[in-house]
C-alpha cells in the first residue's frame, strides 16, 4: 500500500470522528505549547543574562590577576608582559598601576578627588581605548581623564547644597562649566611616613577625555597619568605607589616593573578560549567572559533541561488522550480491519496506518502548539514587564527578555511530541493487527 493511500485512509478516518480527533489534537497542542512556553523562559532569561554579561564586558578581554609560583601569587612583571604579547592571537596587553591614594585635583575654584592610574597608552589604544575629545598624552605632564571626571569637579565648598537631594550628584551649576581639554589642573598628593606629613602639588595638562563607558550606569572619573608623574609621587611619599600610613619596615624593596592590573585582548572571540587555556596551563590566574559564559550556559542548560522535563509531562498527559482516541478508533473500525485483513491487507500495513494516524495527530498538535507558543511568547515579552512594573512598582532591566523560542527548542518540543504520540499509538496499532478476522467480520469485537 502506498504512503499516499495510507494518508488518504487516515484523512478519511479522521473525518469520521472530527470532534474527537480535534479534541485530541487540542490536548496535544496544549501540551506542546506548555512545553515550549515553559522552556522558552529558560531560553529567554539565558539570552538576557548572556547579552547583559557581554554588554558589560569586552568579550575579547582576559583579566590576569597574577602568576602562581609555589602556591603563592605574585604580581606580573615586564617579562610576563613580553610573554603575553608573544602569544598567538593576542592583540594587545594593557597594564596599569594605581596610585595608592586618592589625589585631589584642583582647577580654579573647583576641586575633585579621583582614582589615578598610570597606564601604557599605546597598548590601551591598541586594545580599543578611544577619546571623545582631545588627543593622547605625548609629554610627561600630560594626562587624560575619564568621561565623568568633569561631573565631580565641583566648587570648592563645604556647603552641602551643591548636591542634588535625589541623585546625590553635584548640581550642574556647581560643576566646572568648560571643556577640560587644554586646561591645567593641579594634582595634590599627600605624604604620611614616619611622622612626616605634607602635600605636594604637581601641575598637569588635560589633553584628552575618554569616551563614555558602554553601559549607561558605569562611571569613569579616573585620571590617567604618565609614568614619570607616578615616579614623582613615589619619590615624594617614599612609598610604593604613593601609599599612605604604611609601616616603613614593610616597604616593598622592589616595585619596579610590576603591574596592578593586566588585561590581555584577543584578536577575536574565537581566540579567547585558546589564549585563556594557554594562560591557565602556564599558571596565570585569569578571568575571562568566556569562562563566565561557560558557567552561565551550564547553569541555564540544567535549568532548561528541567523545564523541558516538566513540559514533557504535559505531553505525556496529552498522549493518554491519543491512546484513548486510537484505542476507540481500533475498536470502532474492527469490522473494517477484519475485512481488510480478509482480502489481503498486510498486518504491517494496518499497524502503519494506525501509527501514522497517531503521528498525524501528534504533528498537527505540535504545529498548532508551536504557533500558540510563539504567540504566548510575544505576549509575555510585551505584557509581563508592564504587569511586574505595576504590581511591584519596580523597573525591570532594559532589554530583559522573559521568553525566547529558538528553532532548537521547536525541534526538541516537536521531537518529544512526535515520539510520545507515536509511542502512545503503538499499542492500539498492535491491537489492530491482532484483530481476529472471523470475529471482526461477525461484528463480535
Amino acid at each position, binding site marked *: 500500500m502506498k504512503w499516499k*493511500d495510507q494518508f488518504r485512509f487516515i484523512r478519511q478516518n479522521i473525518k469520521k470522528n472530527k470532534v474527537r480527533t480535534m479534541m485530541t489534537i487540542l490536548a496535544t497542542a496544549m501540551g506542546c505549547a506548555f512545553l515550549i512556553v515553559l522552556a522558552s523562559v529558560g531560553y529567554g532569561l539565558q539570552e538576557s543574562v548572556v547579552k547583559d554579561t557581554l554588554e558589560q564586558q569586552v568579550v575579547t578581554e582576559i583579566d590576569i590577576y597574577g602568576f602562581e609560583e609555589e602556591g603563592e601569587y605574585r604580581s606580573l612583571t615586564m617579562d610576563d608582559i613580553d610573554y603575553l604579547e608573544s602569544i598567538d592571537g593576542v592583540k594587545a596587553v594593557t597594564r596599569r598601576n594605581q596610585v595608592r591614594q586618592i589625589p585631589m585635583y584642583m582647577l580654579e575654584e573647583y576641586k575633585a578627588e579621583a582614582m589615578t592610574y598610570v597606564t601604557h597608552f599605546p597598548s590601551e589604544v591598541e586594545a580599543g581605548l578611544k577619546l571623545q575629545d582631545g588627543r593622547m598624552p605625548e609629554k610627561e605632564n600630560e594626562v587624560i581623564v575619564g568621561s565623568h571626571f568633569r561631573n565631580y569637579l565641583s566648587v570648592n565648598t563645604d556647603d552641602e547644597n551643591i548636591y542634588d537631594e535625589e541623585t546625590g550628584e553635584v548640581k550642574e551649576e556647581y560643576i566646572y562649566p568648560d571643556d577640560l581639554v587644554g586646561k591645567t589642573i593641579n594634582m595634590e598628593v599627600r605624604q604620611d611616613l614616619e611622622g612626616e606629613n605634607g602635600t605636594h602639588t604637581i601641575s598637569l595638562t588635560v589633553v584628552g577625555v575618554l569616551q563614555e563607558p558602554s553601559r549607561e550606569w558605569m562611571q569613569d572619573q579616573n585620571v590617567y597619568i604618565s609614568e614619570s608623574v607616578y615616579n614623582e609621587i613615589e619619590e615624594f611619599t617614599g612609598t610604593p605607589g604613593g601609599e599612605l600610613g604604611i609601616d616603613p619596615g614593610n616597604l616593598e624593596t622592589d616595585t619596579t616593573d610590576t603591574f596592578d592590573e593586566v588585561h590581555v585582548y584577543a584578536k577575536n572571540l574565537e581566540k579567547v578560549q585558546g589564549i585563556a587555556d594557554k594562560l591557565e596551563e602556564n599558571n596565570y590566574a585569569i578571568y575571562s567572559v568566556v569562562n563566565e559564559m561557560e558557567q552561565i550556559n551550564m547553569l541555564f542548560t540544567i535549568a532548561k533541561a528541567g523545564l523541558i522535563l516538566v513540559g514533557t509531562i504535559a505531553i505525556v498527559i496529552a498522549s493518554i488522550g491519543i491512546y484513548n482516541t486510537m484505542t476507540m478508533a481500533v475498536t470502532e473500525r474492527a469490522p473494517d480491519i477484519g*475485512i*481488510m485483513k480478509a*482480502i*489481503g*491487507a*498486510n498486518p504491517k500495513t494496518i499497524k502503519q496506518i494506525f501509527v501514522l494516524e497517531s503521528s498525524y495527530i501528534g504533528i498537527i498538535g505540535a504545529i498548532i502548539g508551536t504557533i500558540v507558543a510563539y504567540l504566548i511568547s510575544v505576549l509575555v515579552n510585551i505584557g509581563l514587564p508592564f504587569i511586574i512594573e505595576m504590581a511591584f512598582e519596580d523597573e525591570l532591566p532594559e532589554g530583559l527578555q522573559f521568553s525566547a523560542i529558538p528553532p532548537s527548542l521547536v525541534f526538541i518540543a516537536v521531537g518529544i511530541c512526535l515520539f510520545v504520540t507515536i509511542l502512545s499509538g503503538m499499542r492500539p496499532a498492535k491491537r489492530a493487527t491482532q484483530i481476529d*478476522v472471523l470475529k471482526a*467480520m461477525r461484528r463480535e469485537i
Partner: protein
Amino acid sequence: MITVQKLNHHFELGKKGNKTILPVLKDISFQVEKGEIVSVVGKSGSGKSTLLNLISGFIHPTEGEILIGDQRVTDFSETKFADFRLKHMGFIFQSFQLIPSMTAFQNIELPLILKGESESSREQRTLEMLNKVGLESFKDHYPSELSGGQQQRVSIARALVLEPPLILADEPTGSLDSETEAELLTFIKQLNTELGVTFLIITHDEEVARIGHRTITIRDGQLIEGADA
C-alpha cells in the same frame, strides 16, 4: 489448484484448566482442479465453513496440510498468508462484508490499493469491474444505499478485481432472493467459463450446489462423498 490432505481441526472451548475439545473436521482429504467449480455442501454445523476458513488461512488447522497451487499454505506466517490471499484468492461472503464508509467504487478499489497499484490503473480496473457487474451508475453509492443483490455484485467485483485464479465463496446467495440468486449463479458460471476462475463454494442450498462441476459432502466433520475429481 487446491489439495487438502488429512485435515483435522478441533476447537478448544472453555477456560484454561477446564477445556473441552470440540472436533470439527476429521481426516479431510480432497482436491480441486484448476478451472473447476466445486460445491461443498453439508448441514449447518457440519464443518464446511471451518473448512473454508482453514483454506483461507483465517484459522490454522490442528493437523494436516493444505496446498494451493504448489504452495504449502499451512506453513505460511500471517503476513505471508495475507500477501498470498491478496494475490491468489478472492472472497465472496454471505453478508457481503463491504466497508460501510466506502462507496461501491472504493470497496472494489480496495484490493488494488492494498496491492499498491497506481491511481490511473486503479480507476480503470475498478470501472471495468463496475461495468462487468452492471453497477457503473451506482459507483458512488454506499453499501447502505444498495440492494442485497447489488451489494453482493460489489463484493464479487472486489473479489475479481485483482483477477485471482481462485474464488472462495461462503454461502454467496444466503442473503439474496431467488431471482438475484439465479442472476448471481449465472454470473459465476460465466466467470468460470470466460476467465477460467476456480470456485470453491460453500453452501447448504442444493440449487446453488448444482452449478458446481462436482459436489463434496461433509457430515459431522467428515467427508462423505465427492473427494475425487
